[in-house]
């Protein structure tokens, strides 16, 4: 009951700082959402490509351009995954530093709880819950707006993926590159859609679900530092008080 009343009061009192943390949470979640979406999209494209290549016989598959295409797609997927991991680490570090500074600013509040004989875990839980509240608000904002503009979002991402991030593939995308493949061959796709697969509504839905299921990663990297640094700081303050 105390927590329910006091956490909103705490957020309201430190409204400016809370707003900043909320915006940072929104930004990090948004960036991670884009990174995770790119991974899902690229993985989907790669699977699609492999499925389509199964249509050709082994002799045709051996063509240089096709091998290059598959390799580049795999390399791109690897790069996206690396970016996502690096981002997670950066987010955790930034949140850790911000938490350290925030606890420094709220030293007197922590001392107040300590002087009222609150156990350490209660103080840490109190601030972790405050951070969790802000994170929940941020994720509701991000997920709602994401779901609302889902169709546009995927179309935009597809464009970015094809136009900008696949630059090394561009020389391959000439009309003639794959023409020998399609000679005397009946397929349900063209050389253009082999390179730029169309995203259907159902696929978008599947990708959206995949990304949502992976959101726990950014959640943990946003929450774990608050909890850990909170413990460090509360223990440190108590030691400083006794010294």
């Amino acid at each position, binding site marked *: 009951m105390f927590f329910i*009343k006091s956490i909103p009061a705490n957020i*309201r*009192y*430190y409204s400016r700082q809370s707003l900043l943390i909320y915006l940072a949470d929104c930004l990090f979640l948004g960036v991670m959402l884009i990174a995770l979406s790119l991974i899902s999209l690229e993985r989907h494209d790669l699977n699609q490509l492999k499925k389509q290549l199964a249509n050709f016989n082994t002799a045709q598959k051996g063509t240089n351009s096709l091998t290059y295409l598959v390799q580049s797609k795999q390399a791109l997927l690897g790069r996206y995954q690396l970016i996502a991991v690096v981002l997670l680490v950066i987010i955790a570090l930034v949140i850790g530093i911000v938490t350290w500074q925030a606890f420094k600013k709220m030293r*007197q509040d922590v001392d*107040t709880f300590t002087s*009222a*004989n609150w156990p350490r875990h209660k103080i840490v839980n109190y601030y972790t819950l405050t951070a969790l509240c802000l994170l929940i608000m941020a994720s509701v904002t991000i997920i709602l707006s994401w779901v609302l503009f889902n169709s546009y979002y995927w179309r935009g991402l597809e464009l970015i993926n094809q136009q900008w991030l696949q630059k090394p593939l561009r020389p391959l995308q000439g009309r003639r590159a794959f023409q020998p493949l399609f000679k005397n061959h009946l397929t349900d796709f063209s050389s253009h859609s082999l390179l730029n697969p169309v995203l259907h509504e159902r696929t978008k839905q599947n990708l959206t679900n995949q990304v949502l299921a992976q959101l726990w990663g950014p959640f943990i990297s946003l929450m774990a530092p608050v909890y850990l640094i909170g413990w460090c700081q509360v223990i440190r303050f108590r030691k400083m008080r006794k010294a």
Partner: protein
Amino acid sequence: MLNKQPLVLGQVYFSQPEMIQQSLESPELPYVIDYEAPKILPFMSGWDNLLLPQKRIAPTLKRVIEAHLKRSRRLLGTELSPVDQFWIQLIRGLATHQQLVVVKQFLDKLPPTDARQLLNDVRQTAAQFQIIVIMTTTQESVFNSFQSQVIS
């Protein structure tokens, strides 16, 4: 100016701040109420600032709370007067069974009438809960006059 030895339970003593460190030899750490750094949460109402679970509040403590914090119950931490802040901290100390309370340079900040009233109240509370309260002030004349008025 701290009385030599030993301190008697239920009494109020006066001292200069620097004397506390030099002459106070006590097995337990004193519970310090520092006016310069009051342990008050700015975003809570006066009542919530006690941070005490309802079950832990004994009837005698409830009476002290009623007497001294009735008005400040609905105030935010930032709006509390210095005297209210003092009582919140003292009540927290009483609830956690602290026996030795040091009040740092509090009297210097209060107008004389408030300070006199406060001293009388603190004296009663100290006697009731059998605690030792040491008040520090930098003004010798202030505590001399209070001492003669309140303690004698």
